[in-house]
């Protein structure tokens, strides 16, 4: 018995020449848990939309083949009817909550279906208990944390009692606490035999363990479809597509390539499996073979100086920053991590004067931000926002990149040269006369960064380049940052992705409730187990693995898969 069947489905959105889905054949068994992975624009979201009739009823277009949900042809049924079979949860928690109390929000779907009132109250209670938010009935959804909001979106689907749960990147916009919260709810759904679960996510590491099957999509097609262990065997292909397989899987694949003792073993997909396999190895030479340039304590001039800063937002009682002292020197590469609401964005918004301290002082290249206008600070500190669409408004990429120059009165004849140079550097020179809106997200992001760099700032602040992005785009932005760093720029970035921190940053700052809990080299950061635990952060998988194997002589300050591979190879004979 199948919950959903795709028979040779091809779909193009109205007005688009390229099909979003190309000949999809897929059968999902009742009770099965499916993970769908793939790069941006692979067709994952379109596939989800097919499961409740949003495609082709809300998003119209040209559809060939057919989709059956519980034997019902979606083309012949409305979204309303299909929503009773398939519940869909989206990635952005804020734009799917529409009511003024949590109880109303959870009841919303059931009310639409005309469920009787007594029944609705029971369902609201049950669903809120299931997502561990009982007692939240009268809270206002818009004021809750991202994780709580996403939990409520799931609860409201539960209250409609669908057979199929479809979650389209449910954790990609959440902080680590929120992700954990939502992950545990999804785990419960996966365990239920009666419910079919389809999760789209880039976080293969977290979801592979609870999936019965992984489907990998690329360019509108299904390219891999099998048991998780078998799909993950194809690590190289996944990496080529810009996906992030679990680090332990990547580690073993790289070890096996050397043709050593590991070649005969199964590839692990969870950290415990890797631990079991590596327990037999003993490490004699535990010096970490640094895969990246060693952390250099920069002794350059101080570019950012924060002294005794306290800040609170107007109308708030709580200090969002509570006694911050920090100095950032020229050419440092700094990661700021911590949960949402810990003060990361509030802190970096002090670096270009968007926010001014209530107490204490912030100096940028010696300029007091209290006395210097933002537009002047923007020539020294560039700020790249998470969402490029917040700043793109010009009719061409050329005008967009040149906007800042024009704003500060840079001579027109020299402007073009700067713009063309930047466009070449970021590989967007062929789009100079096009509207930025016509580019894909990665392209728009490059335009946004180029437009910030037009003023040639010495410091670049990048706010959450990894949140809500596919791994390929995140890396693209981080590689741009790395290039700029090697040219002598100072980089400060905010992220929830610890692998990115381990791979790129030299210095790490952990924030918690408006205070800095840790400020030091990244290699030391991931050894602060107490601080990490207190702030609900988790080191990358390969770091945790090395730490689990400490008694076998593994060094605890490994940072990347590459380092681990070299370490093991050095200690294990061919």
């Amino acid at each position: 018995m199948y919950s959903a069947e795709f028979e040779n489905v091809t779909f193009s959105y109205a007005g688009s020449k390229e099909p979003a889905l190309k000949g999809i054949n897929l059968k999902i068994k009742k009770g099965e848990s499916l993970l769908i992975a793939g790069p941006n624009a692979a067709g994952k979201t379109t596939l989800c939309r097919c499961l409740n009739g949003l495609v082709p009823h809300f998003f119209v277009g040209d559809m060939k083949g057919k989709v059956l949900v519980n034997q019902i042809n979606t083309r012949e049924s409305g979204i309303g009817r299909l929503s009773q079979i398939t519940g869909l949860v989206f990635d952005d928690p804020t734009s799917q909550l529409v009511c003024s109390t949590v109880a109303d929000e959870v009841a919303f779907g059931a009310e639409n279906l005309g469920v009787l009132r007594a029944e609705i109250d029971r369902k609201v209670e049950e669903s809120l208990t299931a997502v561990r938010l009982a007692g939240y009935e009268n809270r206002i959804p818009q004021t809750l944390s991202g994780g709580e909001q996403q939990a409520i979106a799931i609860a409201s689907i539960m209250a409609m009692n669908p057979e199929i749960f479809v979650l389209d990147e449910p954790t990609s916009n959440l902080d680590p606490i929120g992700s954990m919260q939502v992950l545990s709810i999804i785990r419960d759904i996966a365990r239920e035999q009666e419910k079919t679960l389809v999760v789209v996510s880039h976080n293969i590491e977290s979801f592979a363990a609870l999936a019965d099957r992984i489907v990998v999509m690329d360019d509108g097609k299904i390219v891999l479809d099998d048991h998780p262990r078998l799909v993950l065997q194809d690590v190289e292909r996944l990496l080529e597509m810009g996906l992030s397989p679990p680090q332990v899987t990547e580690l073993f694949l790289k070890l096996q390539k050397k043709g050593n003792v590991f070649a005969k073993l199964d590839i692990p997909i969870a950290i415990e499996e890797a631990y079991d396999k590596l327990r037999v190895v003993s490490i004699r030479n535990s010096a970490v073979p640094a895969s990246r340039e060693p952390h250099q304590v920069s002794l350059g001039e101080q570019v950012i100086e924060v002294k005794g800063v306290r800040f609170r937002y107007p109308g708030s009682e709580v200090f969002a920053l509570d006694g911050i002292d920090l100095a950032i020197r020229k050419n440092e590469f700094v990661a700021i991590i911590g949960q949402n609401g810990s003060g990361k964005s509030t802190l970096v918004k002090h670096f270009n004067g968007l926010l001014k301290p209530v107490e204490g002082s912030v100096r940028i290249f010696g300029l007091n931000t209290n006395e210097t206008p933002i537009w002047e600070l923007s020539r020294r500190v560039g700020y790249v926002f998470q969402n490029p669409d917040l700043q793109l408004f010009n009719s061409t990429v050329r005008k967009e990149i040149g906007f800042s120059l024009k704003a500060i009165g840079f001579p027109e004849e020299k402007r073009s040269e700067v713009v063309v140079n930047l466009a070449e550097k970021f590989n967007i020179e062929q789009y100079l006369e096009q509207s930025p809106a016509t580019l894909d997200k990665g392209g728009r992001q490059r335009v946004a960064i180029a437009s910030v760099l037009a003023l040639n700032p010495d410091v670049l602040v990048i706010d959450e380049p990894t949140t809500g992005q596919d791994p390929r785009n995140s890396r693209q932005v981080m590689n741009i940052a790395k290039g700029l760093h090697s040219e002598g720029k100072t980089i400060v970035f905010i992220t929830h992705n610890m692998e990115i921190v381990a791979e790129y940053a030299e210095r790490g700052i952990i924030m918690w409730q408006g205070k800095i809990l840790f400020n030091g080299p990244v290699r030391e950061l991931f050894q602060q187990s107490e601080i990490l635990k207190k702030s609900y952060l988790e080191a990358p998988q390969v770091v945790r693995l090395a730490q689990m194997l400490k008694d076998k002589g593994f060094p605890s300050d490994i940072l990347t898969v590459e380092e681990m591979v070299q370490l093991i190879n050095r200690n294990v004979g061919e």
Partner: protein
Amino acid sequence: MALKIEYVSGESYLHKLDPRPKLLLFLITTVIVIFFTDPIYASIILLAWIILTRASGISVRKTAQILKASAPLLVLYMIINTLTNPANLESAKDPANVIFYLIPMSRWLPVTPQGLVYATAILIRFIIVVYSLQLILFVTPVVDIILALVKWKAPPSLALGTSIGFNFIPVFMNVARSIMDAQLSRGWKGLSAGSLVEKVKALPVFLVPLFLQGIDNAQKIAVAIEARGFGYNIAKRTFRRDLCLNSIDYATLTMEGLLIGGSAALWYTGQGTFMFTYSLVERLISILTV
């Protein structure tokens, strides 16, 4: 200057009241102050609303904030009204009534005691309407207002659409703030700098992304509510909360009936016009002059 759409939770009489008699109370008050032009009558009604505010555990200052914010406007309104209200125009025909001219040393813009009394009443009546509406908004969740509208046969899709719109305002404000920050960060000087022409030229920097984000967000919301069965069978949609009238609601409705009846009787017998206060003022003046 805008009314605050904000629910202040509480357990008071007004909080417990069904939204229908609650909204009716506001409507009746509005109608009464349209008909009664006397400042003393109006003051009594305003006092009643202030007592209601205190009884609901809500700060009078907070409720009156919108009036305070628009004080300059109210003063201007009062001045224009004093000069142009019918009582003033009528009585000014007799120069003996004029107490002073707004432009001294001339005979322009006369002001009479009748006109002043009338204008005072208009001001208080205006304050009552704004103040009482703000109080009602403080003690009634938006959903309840929507439910009351549905009960009064407004189409549910319209009512729900309005409610969703209200809840979306804070989200949209955040987006607007982020756009402002993003543009300021790249050297934009904002909307307050420069000449008028420069300001107008600067608008698209802010408005274009806001508009595009607005459309994007609106579509996301539309998709999200469709996915939860919105519009499936809207005529048969159920509501988790139902409105049902309790004893306090019936008591209030009875009281409101009496209020209407009493006011109608007063009005019918010619009471409640500004002449009531004016006659007192006249008597006071004659005592003082003697």
